[in-house]
């Protein structure tokens, strides 16, 4: 099926599917999958290298995953010098997920990436696995400041990835829109924790983690629908998308694009499988895509 191109800001997406940050490495594996997608968002990137959280970093819950990777990454300089050159042949929108602890850190990251060959930035305001008292994305004011600081230094396409952890995402979405984001992504993983009843201790090395997968889909879908009813901004739906029907539900709820996340861990070829299926299902239901 030839999907209609989806234009948002200065980018064109060839279908509605994007591979979510943290679930497809740096984009240098399974290239045949990445190339068929509308975009790939790389693993969260910080200014300095981060070793990540101590293991265990993953725990499976009912129809979901708790993860506590803690933004393991080589830092922006090494990324630009060693990883980006390997990605230059990708035939899809390469979007770099950036994470910082302050407005200033986000600005520095955006400036550093401004002239690199990437399609855009995803502003990670919502990683539940870094040890700050509050995520910058849990407050509309700090959300605005971060997005504005980035917008001021770059013309790149901007996605603001928001959290729904202890905050009304409508308020932070409005702040991101006011600051000039091109799109918002709803939602990042939810807070979660699990205990080992034999040791009495938390299962994850990072103590708490982020819950993702089908377990969070109805809530994530609600967030997309809720914000989509009230704000005019392109929404990228994310949360538990594992089948073609999930994609169509997100489109019905008001997403223009979706990010496939945890399902890539279950099956790295799931993006290709979903792409084939939405073609068939879309025709059956006479959906426009």
């Amino acid at each position: 099926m030839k999907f209609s191109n989806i234009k948002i800001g200065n980018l064109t997406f060839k279908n509605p599917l994007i591979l979510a940050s943290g679930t497809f490495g740096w984009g240098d594996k399974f290239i045949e999958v990445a190339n068929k997608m509308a975009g790939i968002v790389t693993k969260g990137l910080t200014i300095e290298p981060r070793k990540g959280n101590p293991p265990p970093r993953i725990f499976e819950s009912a129809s979901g995953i708790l993860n506590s990777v803690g933004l393991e990454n080589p830092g922006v300089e090494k990324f630009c010098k060693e990883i980006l050159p390997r990605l230059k042949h990708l035939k899809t929108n390469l979007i770099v997920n950036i994470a910082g602890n302050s407005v200033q850190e986000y600005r520095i990251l955006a400036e550093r990436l401004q002239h690199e060959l990437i399609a855009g930035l995803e502003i990670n305001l919502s990683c539940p696995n870094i040890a700050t008292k509050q995520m910058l994305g849990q407050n509309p004011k700090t959300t605005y400041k971060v997005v504005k600081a980035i917008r001021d230094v770059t013309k790149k396409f901007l996605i603001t990835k928001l959290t729904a952890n202890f905050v009304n995402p409508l308020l932070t979405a409005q702040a991101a829109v006011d600051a000039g984001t091109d799109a918002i992504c709803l939602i990042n993983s939810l807070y979660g924790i699990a205990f080992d009843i034999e040791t009495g201790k938390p299962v994850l090395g990072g103590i708490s983690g982020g819950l993702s997968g089908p377990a969070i889909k109805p809530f994530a879908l609600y967030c997309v629908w809720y914000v989509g009813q009230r704000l005019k901004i392109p929404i990228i739906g994310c949360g538990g998308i594992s089948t073609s029907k999930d994609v169509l539900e997100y489109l019905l709820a008001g997403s223009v694009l979706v990010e496939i996340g945890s399902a890539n861990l279950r099956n790295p070829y799931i993006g290709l499988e979903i792409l084939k299926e939405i073609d068939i299902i879309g025709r059956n239901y006479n959906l426009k895509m």
Partner: protein
Amino acid sequence: MIRERTRIIQHQHLTPEIYSLWLSAPKIAQHSKPGQFLQLQISETFDPFLARPFSIADVQTDKVRIIYRIRGKGTNMLKTKKVGEYLSVLGPLGKAIEKPKYKKITLIAGGIGIAPLLYLAKCLKDKYEINLFYGTRTKKDLILLDEFKLLCRKISLATEDGTKGHRGLVTDLLDSNKLSQTTVFTCGPKLMLKKVQNLLWQNSQIKVFGFLEEMLGCGCGLCFTCAVRKKESSEDYYHICTDGPVFDLSSIEL
């Protein structure tokens, strides 16, 4: 790595808790090497959500074998699969083992850790002298002995209840002095691996490689969840699925 729809061609229990599963997987079989593993998608629904990693226990022309112990939701579901049913499998994953440095090979297995050592022994038997140390809780948990008898010069057994071989742990049988100029491969519980790792500090003329068995996310380098601490720096990590699952035990913190 390949994702293949494999057909179950043999599935039988070796003990009430341990099963042997042969899958018809021509493409994966062709590329599989000792030390590597497979990710089996056990459930078509999303519970359990993740695929499950299993080491490759044997390979024949167009089929691969895994041997597993019932542990949780995934393996309980897997044991109900019947011959003729299909399973989606990703593999072969992880690094193959490097060519052993010494001509003498010692295998040390604890419990179900015997599984990957079978394929390894089959691949090494023509050029190396192989000895096996193998421990389980009790006699009836000892599996694959007939196959190992054809591959090993000597087999030393231990059971915790003393129903076969040495009464106690398999590591009780190890003497670092007798393992000089030997390459050791070990797989089993973490506590056992730690004891085997200690041999290294007693004798520098031993190379010890351990097969790690941990919870994995993707199994193929996408999610960075399977971290294992590097020995030299307490803050640096390897990833089991891409750097392992077999590690030189002098290089990691268990």
